[in-house]
């Protein structure tokens, strides 16, 4: 076998000083993504520009589409053709992608969408925001779960983008990376390890399971069905309608509808323990917890450290690395009985809802600390905490 000439352009192991947006694109390439479709929008354009440079170098395809609807639709086609595909956008573009996300969920299409959120509604502004975290879960029409990750550093823009592809291939579903400008535009060190040591998951194909073409059920065999590609000789059947195991959409019945929708929901939600990750610090025995995610967790941990070192406050830190499926079980494992839970977010308290739902029997006081359009300063978070714990 001849060596792939594009290997010359693969990212080599080493230390790099990159923007979060660039690290995200490099992570996608490392995961094996070879199709990028997008439409420029601040503050996500740097990712698009980097992808435009890098995808052709490694034998991938970069396409600037006419809009975000087209961009997200490209991912569906590319994925059905057997290629890992991604797009990067910001909030107004993310709205336009909801239709494709819904089709992606129903047709169980692996694809990765990165939303570098900006404040809204409407065009809003171009700064920092976490105002799409509910849209990530509920923006698409219909039932069906989603996976959404929240990176907090340049390193995680790389690592969690790889993870997003792995999850998307593993569970055959669209995966969202919910990033924010303070990390997407930040330059920091990125460590890249040896390629062969990086865990990459590729979708299961019917061939891999020894299933012959005439025995193949496009929506059967396992909870996550093996995925045939066009050209493989299998009966490829991608549908947006409620369907049976064999892809039949004409025998509709309430039971068929129930089974199909139920499976789409439960394959994610019932595996939340495996999919959803949290990170904690100082949590054991602590009576006051700060729960945050994404860029805000950078400020939150700074505030927690300062409060402990300088003010002697009992304060601990939990970060949601995964927003959806919501890591309810993991949270309940580490938080038993506390006095206050502080939730700083760059919105007016969106993730406070699932947090309260998960922990309402374990905490009396849930305090939202909103910052709109700009990353909280440590002082902002600290002053609110000091006020509440006085």
């Amino acid at each position, binding site marked *: 076998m001849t060596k792939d000439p594009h290997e010359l352009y693969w990212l080599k192991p080493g230390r790099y000083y990159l923007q979060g947006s660039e690290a995200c694109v490099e992570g996608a390439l490392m995961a094996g993504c070879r199709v990028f479709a997008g439409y420029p929008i601040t503050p996500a354009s740097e990712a698009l520009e980097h992808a435009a440079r890098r995808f052709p170098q490694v034998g991938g395809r970069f396409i600037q589409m006419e809009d975000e609807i087209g961009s997200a639709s490209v991912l569906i086609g590319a994925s059905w053709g057997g290629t890992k595909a991604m797009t990067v956008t910001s909030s107004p573009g993310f709205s336009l992608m909801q239709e494709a996300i819904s089709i992606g969920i129903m047709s169980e299409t692996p694809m990765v969408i990165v939303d570098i959120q900006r404040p809204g509604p409407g065009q809003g502004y171009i700064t920092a925001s976490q105002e799409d975290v509910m849209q990530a879960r509920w923006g698409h029409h219909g039932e069906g779960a989603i996976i959404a990750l929240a990176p907090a550093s340049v390193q995680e823009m790389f690592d969690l983008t790889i993870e997003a592809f792995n999850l998307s291939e593993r569970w055959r579903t669209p995966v969202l990376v919910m990033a924010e400008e*303070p990390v997407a535009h*930040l330059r*920091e060190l990125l460590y890249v390890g040896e390629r062969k040591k990086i865990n990459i998951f590729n979708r299961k194909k019917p061939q891999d399971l020894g299933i012959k073409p005439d025995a193949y059920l496009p929506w059967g065999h396992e909870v996550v069905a093996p995925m045939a590609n066009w050209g493989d000789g299998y009966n490829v059947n991608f549908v947006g309608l409620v369907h049976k195991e064999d892809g039949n959409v004409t025998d509709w019945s309430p039971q068929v509808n129930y089974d199909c929708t139920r499976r789409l929901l439960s394959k994610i939600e019932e595996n939340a323990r495996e999919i959803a990750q949290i990170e904690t610090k100082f949590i054991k025995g602590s009576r006051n917890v700060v729960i945050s995610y994404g860029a805000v967790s*950078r400020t939150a941990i700074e505030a927690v450290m300062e409060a402990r070192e300088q003010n002697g406050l009992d304060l601990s830190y939990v970060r949601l690395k995964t927003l959806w499926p919501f890591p309810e079980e993991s949270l309940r494992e580490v938080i038993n009985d506390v006095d206050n839970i502080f939730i700083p977010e760059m919105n007016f308290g969106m993730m406070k809802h699932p947090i309260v739902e998960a922990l309402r029997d374990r905490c009396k006081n849930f305090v939202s600390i909103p910052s709109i359009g700009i990353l909280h300063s440590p002082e902002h978070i600290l002053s609110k905490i000091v006020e509440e714990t006085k």
Partner: protein
Amino acid sequence: MSHGKRFEIRIAGFGGQGMVTIGRILGEAFSIYEGKNSANSQSYGPESRGGACKSEVVVADGEIYYPNVRRPDVLIALSQRALDTYLPDLRDSGILLIDPASVKDIPQPEKYRVHEIAAMAIAHEIGGVKYQNCVALGALYSLLAEVLKESSLRKAIADNVPPETVDINLKAFERGMSSVRRYGAEDWLRQ
């Protein structure tokens, strides 16, 4: 690993003066060539086009959590508006580096360690106004010599400017290094 020990640099001026580039050069010099952690952020969008475009570098031996500048130790101000906007954040006795051609008025200069660099004039002499950022960077280096090595900055400059301009940018850097001038009474570097 000690938490909270940070060194913070803010560079501000007109959009197009190369503030973002020298922020990136500094960040890379610290992170790639000095083995420290650094976080570099910058203005973007309409903010990056006015008179108060900024670039920030936070440096630490340990982990950097909050990635933005809080109370900078150093402010480079290459426009009056940048100075007016960002001087209030500069910590007391912080280093202030200005170009006297564009910054005329410094409120309470005695609070800071003020230095001048004729960045624009020197850049004109050596080949064009676009090199003023590296002149300013050279001046900054001569004030910070104890915190990073010259070779680190030289390598980071070469990594971040167009290949055909490496030599002239390095020349700008050298001129800046030898031309920084103390302004005010305190010669703190000699103390």
